[in-house]
């Protein structure tokens, strides 16, 4: 019995060790005091102080990061580019009547289904037109076209059954299947009645019919285009808004956008290329997919790089404070130097692509707590405060310069715009007076002789 009991206790210890190991998540929130207790070994630090004085990697990271642009301008640029649903409708010249139909369809089957339904109607109209041209040709050739007429009547009935505001996807698929079967039957019968050499003449007749019914056919074609564009552009704008909001959130979380800003621009380019007709829906679909992936990956890298840089800034401050303390002849605690060296190594290992954003945030919290413990050291505490203040002053001065530069650029743009206006006004005056555009006046304005 005693043996069994001993075995059970042994097993209990085994499982408890297993449980502890499971809980030891490397990304878990740190317990700084514990870490402090573990770090007790004394080392010769003279060499380490040397290393810190020589080490510039972390400081370079900090320096480069401070010089980086936040990326707000790109977000603003993308947001300004976003169209509202109303603006898209206005741009597509959606009439009141169309708007009512669209609203009804949106409530019943959704905008995408409506766009496809209108496309089916468009196909029917073209097919009915073609069918009639073929029947007329066959009749003109003295053949009996009654069977073709009967088949075409079936297609007409099918077309009449289409309600673009109510047809569901399932119903549409059913329609298409039926239509395909009717069309195939018509084609088979038509080929029985006409010879191969008649085909060019039939195609000419079809073209002539299309010309005759051009207005009607163009109307339905335009309607299909408007429905398609309305759906696609609204969808792209909505998706783009989501990405812009995501980038805004990154900024709210205190992250600089870095290359994510460029990926944001790329997505916006896809949206605009489709809007301007430089990209088909199929191309836009493919490009969008790729660019969203790129954006997501870049966002991961951005978060990692941001976290790394923020840590580097804090570590660089401590390095600087240690240097100042040493220069002032103060004794720097050796353990502080060795810890800083360790942290610097950890920061250098913090690479984008090697860890996820989530891991980066968790690891950064661990390192940050170590750094803040170091910052509380009496020898360097005040010095760090001074460094922070000095850096703030530099940042403010940089902002002033940035604002002034932006102001100057704005003034230059205004002057250029005024010159263009003056040139146009001079040309208008000369034209009104019956003279050729006065290049002298323009030149004078350009040269600044005329205000």
């Amino acid at each position, binding site marked *: 019995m005693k043996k069994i009991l001993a075995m059970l206790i042994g097993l209990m210890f085994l499982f408890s060790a297993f449980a502890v190991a499971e809980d030891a998540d490397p990304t878990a929130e740190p317990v700084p005091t514990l870490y402090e207790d573990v770090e007790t070994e004394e080392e010769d630090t003279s060499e380490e102080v040397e290393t810190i004085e020589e080490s510039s990697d972390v400081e370079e990271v900090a320096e480069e990061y401070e010089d980086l642009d936040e990326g707000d301008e790109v977000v603003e640029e993308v947001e300004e580019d976003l169209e509202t649903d109303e603006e898209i409708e206005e741009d597509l010249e959606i009439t009141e009547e169309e708007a009512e139909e669209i609203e009804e369809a949106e409530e019943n089957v959704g905008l*995408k289904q409506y766009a496809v339904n209108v*496309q089916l109607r468009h196909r029917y109209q073209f097919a009915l037109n073609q069918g009639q041209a073929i029947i007329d040709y066959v009749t003109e050739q003295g053949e009996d076209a009654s069977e073709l007429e009967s088949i075409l009547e079936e297609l007409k009935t099918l077309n009449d059954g289409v309600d673009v505001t109510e047809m569901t996807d399932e119903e549409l698929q059913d329609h*298409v299947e039926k239509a395909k079967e009717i069309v195939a039957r018509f084609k088979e019968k038509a080929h029985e009645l006409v010879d191969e050499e008649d085909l060019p003449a039939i195609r000419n007749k079809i073209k002539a019919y299309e010309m005759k019914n051009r207005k009607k056919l163009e109307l339905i074609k335009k309607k299909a285009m408007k429905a398609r564009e309305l759906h696609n552009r609204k969808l792209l704008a909505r*998706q783009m808004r989501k990405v812009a909001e995501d980038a805004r959130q990154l900024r709210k979380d205190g992250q600089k956008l870095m290359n994510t800003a460029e990926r944001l621009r790329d997505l916006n380019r896809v949206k605009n290329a489709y809007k301007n007709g430089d990209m088909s829906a199929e191309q836009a679909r493919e490009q969008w997919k790729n660019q969203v992936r790129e954006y997501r990956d870049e*966002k991961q890298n951005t978060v990692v790089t941001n976290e790394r840089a923020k840590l580097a800034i804090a570590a660089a401050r401590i390095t600087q404070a240690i240097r100042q303390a040493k220069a002032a002849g103060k004794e720097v605690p050796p353990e502080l130097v060795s810890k800083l060296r360790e942290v610097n190594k950890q920061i250098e290992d913090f690479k984008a692509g090697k860890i996820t954003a989530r891991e980066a945030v968790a690891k950064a919290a661990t390192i940050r707590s170590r750094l803040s413990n170091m910052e509380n050291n009496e020898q360097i505490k005040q010095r760090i405060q001074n460094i922070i203040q000095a850096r703030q002053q530099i940042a403010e001065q940089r902002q002033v310069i940035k604002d002034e530069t932006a102001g100057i650029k704005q003034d230059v743009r205004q002057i250029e715009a005024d010159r263009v206006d003056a040139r146009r006004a001079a040309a208008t005056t000369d034209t009104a007076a019956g003279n050729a555009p006065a290049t002298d006046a323009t030149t004078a304005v350009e040269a600044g002789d005329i205000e």
Partner: protein
Amino acid sequence: MKIATLIICLLLLSSMFIVSCAPAGEDTEEEADTAAEEVADEDIDLVGEDEVDIGELI
């Protein structure tokens, strides 16, 4: 007495086993992370010019 000790040990053992094997909310964290990483839809349902095809009459 021995039986009572044995039962207590077994109870302790089973409770520790449950604690060590429980996912400790890992799935929920994973889900939240995926949601946070979700930016916009990768696959967007744009309508092409030729979504509907009923064939040619000739």
